[in-house]
């Protein structure tokens, strides 16, 4: 179910801050993931 993953590079530069309601559609790509993908959730 969970694909292994080797972290070869920092995630810096891949963070996207959403503070405008007009940018919510950016989240849509999370819907296209398949069952082997993992979505992390944090506060």
């Amino acid at each position, binding site marked *: 179910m969970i694909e*292994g993953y080797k972290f070869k590079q920092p995630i810096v530069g891949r*963070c996207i801050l959403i503070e405008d309601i007009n940018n919510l559609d950016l989240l849509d790509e999370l819907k296209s993931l398949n069952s082997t*993908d993992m979505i992390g959730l*944090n506060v």
Partner: protein
Amino acid sequence: MNADVLNDLYRIDVFGPSILTIGTVHKVFIVDIMKLGRNKELDLKLTDIFKNSQATFCGFGIPTLINYFQQFYRDYNFLKHVERIIDARIMYHKVQKKGQRSFASIFYILFAKRIDMTVQFSDWEQRPLTQNQLHQTGIDLQNLLRIVFKLKGLGENKNKINLRVYLDQIISYVTNFTYVDNPAVQNQF
């Protein structure tokens, strides 16, 4: 910056979460829920993702996270129905059988590296968030995913049947703000 750490450091129990981080190993979205407030559009978008994504969700201390949203963002419904979610804290317990530990201690045990807490002590209520805070948020989510993948590997190597069932057959879920930790597994073992 997982829920348990925040509870001690940022008085999150008083003000509630200020950001929601959601993402994969490839991209992390930091949703400023303090700035967006109780926004119906945001809730609908997140609900759509949580209901329709085929991916498995994971977090650390899911019951605590749920409590925060139930207490401070009760109007938000996206966390009420999550069909597939893994709690890395419970996952660690199933693999190592050493009780429940904090995010930082589990990370140290698994990777022999201490998490830098400097940024976590900063003011997360102030806006705009600093580059260091945004950076740390991304690192935190990456570390969460690293823990899940590492535990998955350890579970396979140790042939932990509890974990195998947890991952491959019965995923925990959330219903009406209640975290249900794969009851079939508990009954079976």
